[in-house]
């Protein structure tokens, strides 16, 4: 064993990135591998709620206590990822008094600051709440940007020497002499940052210890070593609205149920959700009735949602786990708590631990616990510092002063840039050339795009999650080609073209769940811009040759086509 143990962490979600940060800050040598982008799995598909714990205050008090503790930590170490919107548990006339009281007592028991407000007071805070909402409990819920948070954790891990490998799928666990000694990965485009068109290849990563932090995918990794990790993936839909109909997190105050939360998130609101067990975390139905249920049920709380514009929907799978002896039938009964499965103790296979269950808000605590566990294996006595040391971007929040003049940005754009970048604003926005806006919906400038490209290579989806570019109302209609152009100069034209087309497809994927009314109109406009003007659906550069002489050579320049050169040329191959 080397003097500094090398730990391989599988999974680039909040848990994996949190573990990588923690271990690397404790001086361990860390390699994190992730099959897609950072946040590719469940983390990138959550509603963005920073739990106060209120949602679990009745049914799962241990989780509730962990939530409020971590809620306070994240406000501190991840200030640039968190917006403290506050939250309300609102009660409609048909929701019971008993449960309302139970919720209130639960919050008190768990140490969650909670205050009862009248229906009128609630409507003063949120004017679009239904007229018949009669009471509410105010709690410190917030909104958190999972992308920014995970990228910041990974950046911090990198600063402490960790190696972060995205687009690297684990294809096998290396087991030698009854012990896990590493893993084999398949790189989509070679090691390091993703560059389209780069030759991939497999790599054997030997490690002194392996942490399986793949959430809903944990069973799949377990299978590679013949381990049975009984994660019960449960899907939930989230529907994104075009604007913030509410500025406070709105929860329905009733026992478990579908469609009971609205989270204001950046320029949007996210409606959630459902809870339905699925077999395969990558292959499950995404259906229109689920979207309809969000709009129809949540409009009981905020009536204007019934006619509001949604811009897309997405589904995530919770990595639920319960010890095999519990046997819950309904996934909503499964605890939101997390579990360390040490495969040495559990399965007599040393060298690996899986972490399953849990939730985004407590990612850091999970990271701390498993890092303690790993350090214990090596007799390393190093303190966890992740609760005290701010993440990159949140180091000095006095930077949220007026940056507009300093960076020559127009006010709303400047404010939004600085909110996203936090204490990194100066470093990112200080440029020599002009810094025009690339994504007008989200106010993302060229400098921010370039900073994201520095961090993620030619992958425009990774640029998107870092900056929010193409995530606004137009869903990339007006800016995807601009983002592609910003890649040019650093990457070849063919790389740029692949990244461009890939982002167009990705943006389309979620919009299909919002195709009616205004968003269908927007989708048609985008389609027209991309196909009619930009001819993205028949780009001659994508293959086939065009007989240029068969087409109009211009008035007054002798029309070669009429000189009898060609009769039926110009048909591109591959069409």
């Amino acid at each position: 064993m080397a003097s500094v143990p090398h730990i391989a962490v599988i999974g680039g979600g909040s848990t994996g990135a949190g573990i990588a940060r923690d271990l690397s800050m404790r001086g361990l040598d860390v390699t994190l591998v992730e099959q897609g982008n950072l946040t590719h799995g469940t983390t990138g598909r959550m509603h963005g709620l920073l739990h106060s714990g209120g949602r679990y205050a009745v049914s799962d008090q241990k989780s509730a206590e962990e939530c409020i503790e971590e809620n306070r930590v994240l406000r501190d170490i991840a200030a640039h990822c968190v917006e403290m919107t506050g939250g309300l548990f609102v009660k409609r006339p048909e929701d019971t008094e008993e449960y309302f009281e139970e919720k209130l007592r639960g919050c008190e028991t768990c140490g969650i600051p909670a205050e009862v407000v009248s229906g009128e007071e609630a409507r003063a805070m949120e004017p679009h709440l239904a007229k018949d909402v009669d009471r509410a409990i105010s709690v410190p819920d917030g909104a958190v940007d999972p992308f920014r948070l995970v990228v910041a954790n990974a950046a911090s891990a990198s600063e402490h020497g960790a190696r972060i490998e995205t687009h690297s799928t684990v294809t096998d666990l290396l087991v030698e002499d009854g012990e896990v000694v590493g893993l084999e990965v398949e790189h989509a485009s070679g090691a390091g940052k993703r560059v389209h068109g780069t030759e991939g290849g497999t790599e054997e990563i030997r490690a002194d210890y392996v942490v399986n932090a793949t959430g809903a995918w944990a069973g799949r990794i377990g299978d590679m070593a013949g381990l049975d990790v009984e994660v019960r993936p449960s899907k939930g839909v989230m529907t994104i609205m075009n604007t913030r109909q509410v500025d406070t997190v709105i929860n329905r105050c009733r026992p478990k149920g579908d469609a009971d939360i609205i989270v204001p998130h950046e320029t949007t609101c996210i409606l959630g959700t459902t809870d339905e067990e699925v077999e395969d975390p990558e292959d499950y139905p995404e259906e229109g009735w689920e979207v309809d249920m969000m709009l129809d049920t949540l409009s009981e709380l905020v009536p204007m949602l019934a006619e509001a514009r949604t811009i897309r929907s997405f589904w995530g799978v919770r990595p639920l786990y319960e010890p095999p002896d519990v046997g819950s039938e309904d996934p909503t009964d499964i605890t939101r708590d997390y579990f360390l499965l040490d495969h040495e103790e559990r399965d007599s296979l040393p060298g690996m631990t899986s972490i399953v269950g849990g939730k985004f808000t407590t990612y850091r605590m999970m990271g701390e616990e498993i890092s303690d566990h790993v350090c214990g294996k090596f007799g390393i006595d190093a303190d966890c510092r992740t609760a005290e040391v701010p993440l990159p971007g949140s180091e000095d929040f006095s930077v949220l002063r007026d940056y507009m003049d300093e960076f020559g940005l127009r006010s709303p754009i400047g404010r939004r840039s600085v909110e996203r970048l936090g204490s990194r604003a100066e470093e990112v926005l200080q440029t020599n050339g002009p810094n025009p806006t690339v994504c007008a919906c989200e106010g993302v400038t060229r400098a921010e795009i370039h900073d994201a490209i520095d961090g993620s290579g030619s992958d425009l989806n990774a640029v998107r999650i870092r900056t929010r570019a193409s995530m606004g109302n137009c869903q990339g209609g007006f800016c995807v080609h601009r983002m592609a152009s910003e890649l040019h100069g650093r990457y070849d034209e063919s790389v740029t073209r692949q990244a461009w087309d890939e982002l167009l497809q990705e943006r389309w994927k979620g919009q299909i769940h919002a195709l009616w009314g205004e968003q269908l109109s927007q989708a048609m406009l985008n389609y027209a811009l991309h196909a009619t003007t930009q001819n993205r659906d028949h780009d001659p550069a994508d293959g086939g040759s065009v007989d240029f002489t068969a087409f109009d050579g211009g008035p007054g320049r002798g029309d070669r086509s009429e000189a009898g050169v060609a009769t039926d040329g110009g048909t591109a191959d591959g069409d």
Partner: protein
Amino acid sequence: MAIESAVLVVGGGLAGLTSALSAAREGADVRLVSYKQSTLRNASGLVDILGYTPDGDGPRTDPYEAIPELPEEHPYRTVGVEAVREAMALFDDAVPDYRGSHTDRNALLPTHGGTIKPTARYPAGASAGLASDTRDVLLVGLEAMVDFDAEHAAAHLRAAGVPFDVRGVTIRFPGDLRADAKITRYAKLLDTDGEVAVRGRMRPAREALAERVNTELEGEARVGFPAILGDDRAADVRTALEERLGAAVFEVPMGPPSLPGLRLEDALFEALDAAGASIETGNPVVDHDGEGRVERVYVEKHGARIPYAADQYVLATGGLVGKGVESDRERVYEPIFDCHVPHAEDRYDWFEADAFGDHQFAGFGVRTDEGLRPTAADGAVEFENLRAAGSVLGGYDFAAEKSGSGVSIATGYAAGRRAAEEAR
């Protein structure tokens, strides 16, 4: 009492303007009412007839030749090839600053992302940019303009195998326009040849721009700019730059807000005005009276519903983008006359999973008889005196085919002429 005309055209886009023009030139008393800015500001200003067939064959060299192969429900089949030719002749006559009428062949033009596309008519200002021209090209981008990256576009054109050398450079526009300056700001500056500060000296903008580009020119015979070269005086701006550069100058067609699209709209409004039609913009048509025959429509003005009556009506309100076709979670509909719009019951059948798949929504719109009169589900004519033109028509995917402008012009022409004939 209702405001009256022989022909009332609802909609001020390419189809509405063409149908009003065609009816007016037939001698009819025509009124055109249009609500908002037309979708032409989104359009590149290129006028396509047909670049690809519905099964993706193309780019076709001769759009007319491909028309008889189109499916029967295609609007081109409804009006027929001859009407398409006549319509284009009307367009060519009404919009003199366009080129391409010297041949039936399609032209290939690069647009702002550097992709080549087939089109049938192009603004004179884009004419030197044809991809079948073999003269070398320098593309000039502006540092602060994110919609056109000259180096990227040049590399993209090389990848498509264009028959000329092409290079891109990015310059700072002379003077000090701020980073998010609107394209109209550049155009205005060039229109007026306003003074800009270059190294402390004030210089006319055209001269300063040409001088800056001259330092980059390496003998290329053609120089392409983003489509910002003037608005009202675009030809003067181009000529001035050509003289100073000793090269042909062209604009690369761009996305919204598109100056070439807006110039086209202006040209058509002028032609329509010259033809003697009445034009009213700014208020929506919201409803109609009449069954089987449109008696009148209602225009909403300052909250009041004003009746407009005519003998013949043309519906040219656009498609999903222009809101001539609307939808909710359950259905797709035409909002003014509630004409039948065929669509699948389940909204999950309206699209394909691929971004450029064969989307049903792209073909949403009313269906018509041979006279362009919208028909009900059973095929019966909805109103004997209502005709539809342009994107409100269904049964074709203009984006995939590159046929939007041509269908608008052809059906606008045919609907306007029929309406004028009937109104006699």
